């Protein structure tokens, strides 16, 4: 009796779903897109341990407001639905399902965090909903074969690590490397990148220390790393810990060749608090301009960013690297939607996202371009090395790609 009822109910919903599906397909729209509106979903940690990144979501919201105020994309307004997952994977799944099944968005754009994205990847791919430009640098997002609906945005942690490894093997082949890394996906991915690229020279690594993001300070680790006698220090750390490391190095009078990961290169958010005098000669690599760096004050792209912030997001802290990040990602999204024209199906969104050619958002370093193809789901692949001098980063060398094969 009961199971019969279930049958009927399920059948009825199936029929409704089927008919509504065909009705939409005739209009070249998928769920979430109409003549007047494009609905975009997003998941951000507005609360919880990673709430610092919530700024990215707010910047994106502001940027879409700007686009809407200027008439939208091909006459359609963007409806940006952004939810909080508190950096908790189960909550991310709940929010992703809410976006897809209840809000009926066209796509999920720039959800943040490797754990959260890993949790929703399978679901979104099964539902064939684009998971576009995820806000994490894990290498696994570039996997069009297994996950054709997922695409990254920023350079992967591993490719960045390859660049440092190549630099070290060339400039300091006899160096002894000490590594401090955060014990999570970010740190581990990075470490793997370093070891892969060092290859047979992995013996250069004299010491590695991991820390937990919940630790108050990394001072003790630095002291131990110094004791290893290394003369190269690679700091795979998030901003707070990177600043602590820079400061502690000076306090204990240890002067190795200091490489800091791209995550923590913000002049305003890391180096200034740690003290400019302590950061001289430090190395890193970048793909985007820095809002706190005076060398970009007259850059036309950054000027556009500042004008936008003034009008649409006045209480933003322009020293915050997340602002620059959110702006660049949102610009890429808008570009893809523009390319879609009137064919706003999920299929076409992915197709267009995978055919970006030499696209340059305002905030990328000169010479760095976004390119994708059906087999290449890694939009930004290039970085440039830089050295900290005075109160800003000096770029040097060529724009390099982090692919191992080269």
């Amino acid at each position, binding site marked *: 009796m009961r199971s019969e009822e279930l049958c009927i109910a399920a059948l009825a919903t199936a029929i409704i779903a089927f008919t509504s599906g065909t009705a939409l397909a005739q209009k070249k729209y998928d769920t979430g897109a109409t003549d007047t509106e494009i609905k975009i979903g997003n998941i951000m940690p507005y609360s919880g341990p990673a*709430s*610092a990144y919530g700024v990215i979501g707010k910047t994106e919201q502001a940027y879409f407001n700007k686009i809407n105020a200027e008439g939208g994309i091909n006459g359609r307004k963007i409806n940006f639905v952004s939810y909080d997952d508190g950096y908790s994977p189960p909550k991310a799944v709940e929010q992703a399902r809410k976006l897809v099944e209840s809000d009926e968005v066209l796509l999920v754009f720039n959800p943040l965090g490797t754990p959260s994205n890993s949790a929703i990847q399978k679901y979104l791919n099964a539902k064939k909903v684009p998971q576009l430009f995820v806000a994490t640098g894990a290498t696994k997002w570039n996997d069009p074969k297994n996950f054709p609906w997922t695409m990254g945005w920023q350079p992967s942690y591993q490719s960045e690590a390859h660049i440092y490894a190549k630099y070290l093997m060339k400039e300091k082949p006899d160096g002894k490397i000490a590594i401090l890394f955060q014990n999570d996906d970010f740190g581990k991915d990075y470490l793997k990148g370093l070891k892969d690229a060092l290859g047979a020279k992995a013996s250069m690594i004299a010491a590695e*220390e991991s820390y937990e993001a919940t630790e*108050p300070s990394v001072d003790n680790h630095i002291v131990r790393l110094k004791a290893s006698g290394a003369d190269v220090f690679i700091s795979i750390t998030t901003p707070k810990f990177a600043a602590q490391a820079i400061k502690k190095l000076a*306090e204990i*009078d240890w002067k190795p060749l200091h490489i800091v990961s791209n995550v923590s290169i*913000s002049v305003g958010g*890391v180096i200034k608090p740690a003290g400019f005098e302590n950061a001289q000669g430090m190395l890193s690599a970048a793909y985007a301009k820095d809002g706190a760096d005076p060398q970009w004050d007259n850059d036309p792209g950054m000027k556009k960013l500042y004008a936008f912030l003034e009008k649409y997001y006045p209480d933003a802290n322009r020293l915050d690297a997340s602002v620059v990040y959110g702006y660049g990602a949102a610009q890429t999204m808008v570009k893809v939607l523009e390319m879609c024209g009137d064919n706003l199906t999920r299929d076409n969104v992915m197709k267009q996202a995978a055919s970006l050619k030499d696209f340059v958002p305002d905030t990328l370093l000169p010479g760095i371009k976004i390119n994708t193809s059906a087999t290449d789901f890694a939009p930004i692949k290039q970085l440039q090395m830089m050295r900290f001098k005075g109160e800003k980063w000096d770029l040097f060398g060529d724009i390099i790609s982090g692919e191992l094969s080269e």
Partner: protein
Amino acid sequence: MGAIYACMALAVVMIYQAIDHLNFAQGEMAMFSTFVSWQLMQWGVPYWGAFVVTLVFSFFGGIAIERLLFKPLAKAPILTNVAGFIALFAIINSVAGLIWDFTIKQYPTPFGSSPFLGSQLISTHQAGMIGVTVLLLVGLYFFFQFTRIGLAMRAAASVPESARLVGINTSWMIALGWGMAAAIGSIAGMLIAPVVFLEPNMMGGVLIYGFAAAVLGGLTSPLGAVIGGFLVGIFENLAGTYIPGVGNELKLPIALALIITVLVVKPAGLFGRPIVKRV
């Protein structure tokens, strides 16, 4: 590191003396105070000026929180109070994030940050922290042992009924306890900030260790808390350095396991007084 934990543990013990609970929002209160002093300095107030103003602010802020939020809960079950602490935690953290955002801020130290007496291990700031902690400890000891009000506070916390009988206003003693705990917390915050950098989540990690230290030393003993703080720092480092393989990855669990072991042997902590329950 030990000094940081000791400082925080002292504040934890302080409030435990006053209200008989562990306050989960303690770290956030300290963080907020530290932000206030930072803001004052941004406005041009000199360090010690900001320091004093913040102390006063925290003291009255602590009292206000007690009067407004926790006095109405005095009759509610203890677990409800704990839920209240968690709510307070969420509010302060979120408000601080909104006002001052989540980028890290540099926080000055009055002691300088060069290596201390040529030592490679601790800086002058850390030495200064240890000094301040010891000063605070001595001050608190005299306060609780020899002043009328200190004795009254202890009485109010441990045997409220009898304390009321001898004419102590227990309700205000609790408020006073909150005020003092907030003030000590703010000192801890201002000392910790130069090391870990100022941001809304800065106390998260510290508080766990502060609790652990306070419990290890015995929640009833300020001296115990300070010693507990240093011990936790030492445990943590030894585990990281000398246990091969997993030591580094698991130093927090190992440190905590050690503390639990100590507690199992000495349930009231190293320096706490055992509590005998009456049937």
